[in-house]
C-alpha cells in the first residue's frame, strides 16, 4: 500500500540511476579531459614528426650548406691558379644560390657578403696575386662569423624539438594529474557508494533480518527508524503487518485448540484431550514415584431423567454437574466428559485415599444440589464413582479398574464410591 509519505520517498532504483548518472557524468568528464590530453600528445607527436623534424632537418641541411660555403671559401684562398680560384668561386656562388640559404635571411646575407667579398678578391688577385695573402686574415674573420652562424642555426634547429617535447611532457604531466584525479574520484565515489549502501540498504536490511528472526507474538511489534528508501520502508511496513497477522493467527489457533479440546455441552475437556494430558501426568508421577489416582463417574438414572423430562433436561443436568464439578476440584485435577453421562477424573499427587476424600465430598455436594429443569421442576441427581490407583499401571489399565469399580458401585445401589482393589 502506497502512502503519501512513500510517494516522497525515493526508490532504490531511482537512487541507483541518479548515482550511476552522476558517476557516469563525472567519469565521462574525466575521460574526455584525458582524451583531450591524448589528442594533444598525438597532435604534438604528429607535429614533431611531420613539421618539426623536417624543419630540424632543414636547419641541419642549411648548416651543412653553410659549412660547404665556408669550405669553398677556404679552397678559394688555397687555390694555386686563377682557374682553380674561379672554380671555387663558382662553387661558392652555387652554394650561395641554394634555396635553403636564400630563405634564411641571416644565411642569405652571409652568403651574399661572402660571394661579393670573394668576387672582389678574385678581381684584385687577377691584378695582384699578393692580395690573396693580404686579405686572408679578413676572410678568416668572415669564416669565423660563418662558423658561429652555423652553430646558431644548428642549435636553433635542435631547439625546435625542445618546444614540442616540452609541450608533450607538460601534457603528459597534466594527464598524469588528471588520471590520479580520476582514480581519486572513482575511489571516492566507491566509498560514498559503500557508505550510502550501508546506511540506506545494508543496515536497514540487517534490522529487518533481526526483526524477522525474533518476530514473536509474545513480543511487541518491531520498531524501525524512518527509512529513506521506499522499498526498505515497504518491507518494514510489511514486517509490522506480519507481526499483527501472527498475533491474530495465534489467537485463532488458541480458540480452535480450545474448541477442539473441550466438550461443547459441558465445557469440560473432551476424552481425547483428557487421555493425552492424563498419559503425560501418569508418566511423570511414575517417573518420580508420586501418587496418582483415576476415577470414572456416572450419573445415576440419567436415562430415566431423559425419558421423563426430555433431553433438554438431561443437558441442563450435565451442564450443572460440570459447573459444580469445576468449582469443586483442584486446579491441577483433570476432569473430562468421558461419554454420555460418564465422566473421568485424574488426581495428580493424590493417593487413592486422598482422591476418595475429594470425590466423596463432591458426591455428597452434588447429591444435595437442587437442579432446576427447563420445565421448572427441581430435581436431585446422584453420582456413582469408581476409583483406582494409577501410580503403578498404565492409564488404560487404571481406567479399566476404575470402570470395574464403577460397575460395582452401580451394582451396590448407586450414589456411592467404590475403590478398585489393588492390582496384583
Amino acid at each position, binding site marked *: 500500500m502506497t502512502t503519501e509519505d512513500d510517494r516522497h520517498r525515493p526508490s532504490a532504483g531511482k537512487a541507483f540511476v541518479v548515482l550511476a548518472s552522476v558517476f557516469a557524468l563525472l567519469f565521462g568528464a574525466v575521460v574526455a579531459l584525458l582524451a583531450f590530453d591524448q589528442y594533444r600528445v598525438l597532435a604534438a607527436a604528429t607535429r614533431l614528426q611531420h613539421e618539426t623534424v623536417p624543419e630540424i632537418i632543414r636547419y641541419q641541411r642549411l648548416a651543412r650548406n653553410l659549412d660547404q660555403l665556408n669550405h669553398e671559401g677556404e679552397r678559394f684562398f688555397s687555390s694555386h691558379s686563377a682557374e682553380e680560384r*674561379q672554380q671555387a668561386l663558382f662553387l661558392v656562388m652555387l*652554394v650561395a*644560390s*641554394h*634555396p*635553403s640559404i636564400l630563405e634564411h635571411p641571416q644565411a642569405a646575407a652571409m652568403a651574399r657578403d661572402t660571394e661579393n667579398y670573394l668576387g672582389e678578391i678574385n678581381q684584385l688577385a687577377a691584378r695582384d696575386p699578393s692580395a690573396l695573402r693580404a686579405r686572408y686574415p679578413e676572410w678568416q674573420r668572415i669564416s669565423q662569423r660563418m662558423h658561429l652562424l652555423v652553430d646558431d642555426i644548428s642549435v636553433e634547429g635542435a631547439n625546435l624539438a625542445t618546444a614540442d617535447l616540452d609541450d608533450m611532457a607538460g601534457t603528459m604531466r597534466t594527464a598524469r594529474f588528471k588520471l590520479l584525479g580520476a582514480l581519486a574520484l572513482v575511489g571516492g565515489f566507491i566509498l560514498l557508494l559503500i557508505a550510502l549502501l550501508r546506511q540506506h540498504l545494508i543496515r536497514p536490511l540487517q534490522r529487518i533480518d533481526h526483526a524477522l528472526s525474533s518476530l514473536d507474538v509474545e513480543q511487541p511489534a518491531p520498531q524501525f527508524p524512518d527509512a529513506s528508501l521506499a522499498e526498505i520502508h515497504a518491507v518494514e511496513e510489511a514486517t509490522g503487518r506480519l507481526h499483527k497477522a501472527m498475533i491474530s493467527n495465534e489467537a485463532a489457533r488458541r480458540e480452535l485448540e480450545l474448541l477442539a479440546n473441550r466438550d461443547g455441552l459441558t465445557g469440560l475437556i473432551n476424552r481425547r484431550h483428557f487421555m493425552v494430558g492424563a498419559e503425560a501426568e501418569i508418566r511423570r508421577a511414575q517417573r518420580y514415584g508420586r501418587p496418582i489416582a483415576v476415577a470414572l463417574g456416572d450419573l445415576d438414572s440419567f436415562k430415566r431423567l431423559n425419558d421423563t423430562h426430555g433431553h433438554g433436561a438431561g443437558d441442563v443436568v450435565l451442564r450443572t454437574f460440570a459447573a459444580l464439578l469445576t468449582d469443586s476440584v483442584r486446579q491441577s485435577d483433570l476432569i473430562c466428559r468421558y461419554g454420555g453421562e460418564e465422566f473421568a477424573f485424574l488426581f495428580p499427587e493424590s493417593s487413592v485415599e486422598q482422591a476418595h476424600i475429594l470425590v466423596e465430598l463432591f458426591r455428597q455436594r452434588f447429591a444435595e444440589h437442587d437442579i432446576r429443569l427447563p420445565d421448572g421442576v427441581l430435581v436431585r441427581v446422584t453420582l456413582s464413582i469408581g476409583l483406582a490407583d494409577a501410580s503403578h499401571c498404565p492409564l488404560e489399565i487404571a481406567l479399566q479398574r476404575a470402570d470395574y469399580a464403577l460397575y460395582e458401585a452401580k451394582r451396590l445401589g448407586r450414589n456411592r464410591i467404590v475403590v478398585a482393589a489393588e492390582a496384583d
Partner: protein
Amino acid sequence: MNSLRALVLIAALFSGLLQAAELKVAVLVQDPAQISMQGKLIPSSTPGADLVAVTDELAREICRRIHAHCAFYYVRLAEILPGVEAGRFDLGFGNFLRAPEREKRVAFSDALFRSSSRLIGTPANVRAYTTKLAQPVNLANLRGARVAALDGSRQQAYLDRNASERALTVVATSTTAEALDLLRNDSADFALLPIRTGYALISRDKAQRFVFVGPAVTAHGLGDTAHIVLEKQNNALRRAANKAIAEIKADGTFQRIMYRHFPVFLD
C-alpha cells in the same frame, strides 16, 4: 586509352609483372648534339654533359628500383611535359619545378632536390647594364634587355609575364647550351637558368666568359623543389617512383650519383 594504360600498370605492379613492363623515360638534354646520341655515352666535352649524366643515372637507378625495364629517350625540355601528358613517356626527368598550370597536366613525384634560378651574363654586359640602370644588375631591376631562357621552362614563363612591363625581349632556346651560345654570339644579353644548370655550364667554359649576375631567386616560381613528372592518372607508378626516391636518398645512392658529377652535394 590513358586510363587503360594506368589500369594495366596498376595490375602489373600488384602482380609483380612490372618487371616485364616497359616504361618510356624522357631524359633532359642540355645540348642539341646530345639528342642524336640517344643512349650512347655522351662525351664529357659537350656542354652540360655532367647534368645529363646525373639525370641519366638517376633515371636508370629509379627504373631498377621499381623493377621496370625502361627505354630512355633523350629530349629537349619542351618535349617532356607534353610527352608525359600525352602518354608518350611514362616518366619525365627534367628537374621540373611545380607550378599550378603544370599540376593540371601531369603528376609530380616527391622532391629530388631544391633549386633556384639565376641570371648569367658576360662581364661586359654586366658592366653595360650596371651603367645603364645606374645600379648593380639583378633579375628584379633588369629592364630593356634580351634574356634567353629554356623553352617550356619556369624561367621563360617568368620572363614572358614581365616582358612587356619591363621591356624585356625573351629569347627561347631549345637547350641550355643554346642559351649560352646566344650570349657568346651577343644575340642575348643575359640568360636566366636554373642555378645547377648554370653552374654546370659556366664552370666548364674554358674561356670563362660568363659570370652569375645578381642574387639567385626562388620567388615567382623560379625556385623550389625539383621533381620527376608522370602521367596524371598513373598513381601506381607515382607511388613506386616515390618509394624508389625515398630509398635512394635513404641508402645514399642519390648522394653518390650527385657527387660523381658535382663537387658538392646540396640537398
